[in-house]
């Protein structure tokens, strides 16, 4: 067909804010609002260091949230990330522990540390590949598959650690990465890595074909197929990326604590899911943003830290999370419905 280039300028380009931008803004404002409210109520809450802590204390969950959010947008769950954190951490310790220790828990494979981390990452990717295999090839619902692999990953970690932890006979450089402080501040490498990952994720999501394909698949898988999108391969990549992030998080946590612990990252998969939902990522797919997920994490952090600093004992944190999640999701649904009325 001939290509007309001239007269389309008559169409005005009025840009209404998209629903996604609207929800992200809403989540951001709620996060800031909650922080300010907490600052009034809780003594010493309104401090720069406290803001920094809200982010730095949650670097692991926010990092996991990136992979989980992308998968949710594509219409898939990833509940295996917490298990992968435990597995890759334990593997990195086991591979790096020197041979010939005094008991089974202090005897490892004696790999050089760089090789140990690469192999640990390989273990994480294997779980990711397993997720992709069952979801894509055997078409099993992702919630079931990743619930299974979550237990597989943690189960392997538990066998390697005999249900306890491995923390002896480690090379001296083992604790380096997890405790490296950057730019002469107290901010550690993992936090910087999280920020870099976030920036990359936002760029991929907004500007790259890869990100948009994720939305297309989530919005309408069948139309995506018929539009020539290789859905199976894309979802495979998403699971591998999510597992890779979880693997790195596990390695860094093991390094920070200089131990491999099979219960590390327990319930992190649910926290990652919760912050994504708080941040406006739709559980049905096709909708959401990484920035929203980030502020979802901040909301959760403010609520739990403020309340425990105020009146309640830390035992209340689950209840608080529950209340925050319900309120946030009801508000979002209501706001979107009102907006699109």
């Amino acid at each position, binding site marked *: 067909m001939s290509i007309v280039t001239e007269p389309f300028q008559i169409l005005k380009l009025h840009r209404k804010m998209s629903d996604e931008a609207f929800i992200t803004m809403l989540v951001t404002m709620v996060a800031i609002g909650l922080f300010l409210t907490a600052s009034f109520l809780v003594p010493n809450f309104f401090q720069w260091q406290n803001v920094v802590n809200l982010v730095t204390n949650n670097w692991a969950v926010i990092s996991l949230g990136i992979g989980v959010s992308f998968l949710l947008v594509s219409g898939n769950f990833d509940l295996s990330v917490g298990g992968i954190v435990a597995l890759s951490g334990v593997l990195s310790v086991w591979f790096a522990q020197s041979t010939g220790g005094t008991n089974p828990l202090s005897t490892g494979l004696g790999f050089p540390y760089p090789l140990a981390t690469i192999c640990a990452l390989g273990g994480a990717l294997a779980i990711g590949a397993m997720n992709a295999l069952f979801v894509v090839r055997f078409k099993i619902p992702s919630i079931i598959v990743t619930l299974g692999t979550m237990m597989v990953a943690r189960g392997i970690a538990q066998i390697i650690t005999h249900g306890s932890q491995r923390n002896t006979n480690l090379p001296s450089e083992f604790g380096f990465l997890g405790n490296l402080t950057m730019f002469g501040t107290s901010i550690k490498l993992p936090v910087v890595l999280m920020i870099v990952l976030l920036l990359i994720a936002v760029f991929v999501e907004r500007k790259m074909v890869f990100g948009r394909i994720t939305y*297309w698949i989530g919005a309408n898988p069948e139309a995506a197929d018929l539009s*020539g999108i290789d859905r199976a391969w894309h979802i495979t990549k998403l699971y591998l990326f999510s597992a890779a992030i979880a693997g790195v998080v596990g390695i860094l946590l093991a390094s920070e604590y200089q131990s491999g612990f099979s219960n590390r990252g327990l319930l992190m998969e649910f926290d990652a899911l919760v912050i994504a939902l708080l941040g406006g990522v739709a559980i049905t797919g096709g909708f959401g943003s990484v920035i929203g997920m980030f502020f979802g994490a901040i909301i959760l952090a403010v609520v739990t830290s403020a309340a425990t600093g105020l009146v309640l004992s830390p035992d209340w944190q689950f209840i608080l999370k529950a209340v925050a999640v319900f309120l946030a999701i009801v508000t979002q649904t209501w706001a979107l419905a009102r907006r699109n009325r």
Partner: protein
Amino acid sequence: MTGQQTFTVLSVEELTKDYPGVRAVDQVSFVIENSTIHCLVGENGAGKSTLVKMLTGALEPTSGSMSVNGKAYAPTSPQEAREGGLATLFQELHVVDELTVLENLTLGMEKSRFGFLIKSDLEDRMIKTLAAIEPSIDPTARVSSLSVAQKQIIEIARAASSGANIIIMDEPTAALSEREVERLFGVIRRLRESNVTVIYISHKLDEIFELGDNVTVLRDGKHIATKPLSEVNGRAELIEMMIGRTVFQNYTPRAGIGDKVVLQAQGVTNKLLKNVSFDIKEGEIVGFYGLVGAGKTEIARALFGADPFEGSVTYKGKPVGTTPKEAIASGIALVPEERRTQGLFTELTIRENVPVMNLPRVSKSGIFKARDVRDASLRYVDQLGIATSSIEKHAEKLSGGNQQKVVFAKCLFSKADLLLLDEPTRGVDVGAKTEIYDIIKELADEGDAIAVFSSELEEVLGICDRVFLMFDGHLQEEITNGPDVDIAHILNVVTGGHEGDVI
């Protein structure tokens, strides 16, 4: 019917249904007698489904009245229709696969006390009903182990035992094999013997002659005739009543059809298709015409790599790919049958819908060129006349015609030179229809090859240069369009008649 009194079980009086701008059912009056199999026929758009929806309470008539079993009848929901004695066998089945036949039959009618189920004579009654209409089904069998036809029979038994004495069946044989059809017919005849009236809707005229007692013909929303089938003089008369007019035909032979064959299909066979062979030339518009279930969509999907098939299809001399991705890369694009579920990303904007089939064209090293994306959307909005205030509008907020144009824009943006259009104007208003036809012709004039898959005769005869007639997975006949096409013959072929049956 011997020895029984004849009386009216259902009468329809001046029934009318208006939609904005169109009268779907126009002052229809007829009566249906007890214990008969009453067939309802008409072309697509003749008003059959609207009429049935009013009978079952899914739609409210604009004017007119109905009565069932001598009582005034104005249902507002299918439940009310059921209480009035009228049940419907829908095309999609409402059975629970995990339960047994008997549990399905008694579903929702169980008696309970304090939340515990109590035994009643209900089950015995159900077993008797089932045995009366189809003894071969084991009441204790799990429904998931049954065939589609057997599931239908369970629904019929449920309807019959709920006290309905009129059962409407809308195209019940669409998904059945020949043997299953025979079995269903046996059931329907046994229902008639037990004083149930069946309203039977089908496009397959052979079935109507085999099964029916009386027939009502609708055309353009109007009632044409109700009479015993024994007084109908063969398929020819029935078809004549259904068409009754010359199909509006504004086809003008097109110049510019190339000699070069671009697509060649040989012996395409799969689950539904049987040895289908045809070719499409450069700059040509071909049509595939047949009833629902004749295999049109299956051909489109096979050519597009969306469904597997045996046989060979070559496009520009090379075999077509086995995935939509490969098909698009080789220059084939599909406008799917269901635009909302298969063609569009309804929750996304026009801007986000247009580029999806050709991402390399709007990106570099995986990064979008935002300006190109915007320009592409603006260009197609303008070129195809998509009525919208902005390219940032969500596709779901557009009208049917404009949604379809967005799907066209997607395909055109892929730079395809073979367009497969599956029901391109379904659910599109008249104005947009004409615009879409103009777009199709313009594309063909520029050398693209186009295949239109349609169950609307006016559509294929309006724009296609050649028409392939489909029935039951077979490509029956090829017709060159022109002023002297024999419409009665076409309808005869696509309803399962053989050449020479008419006249």
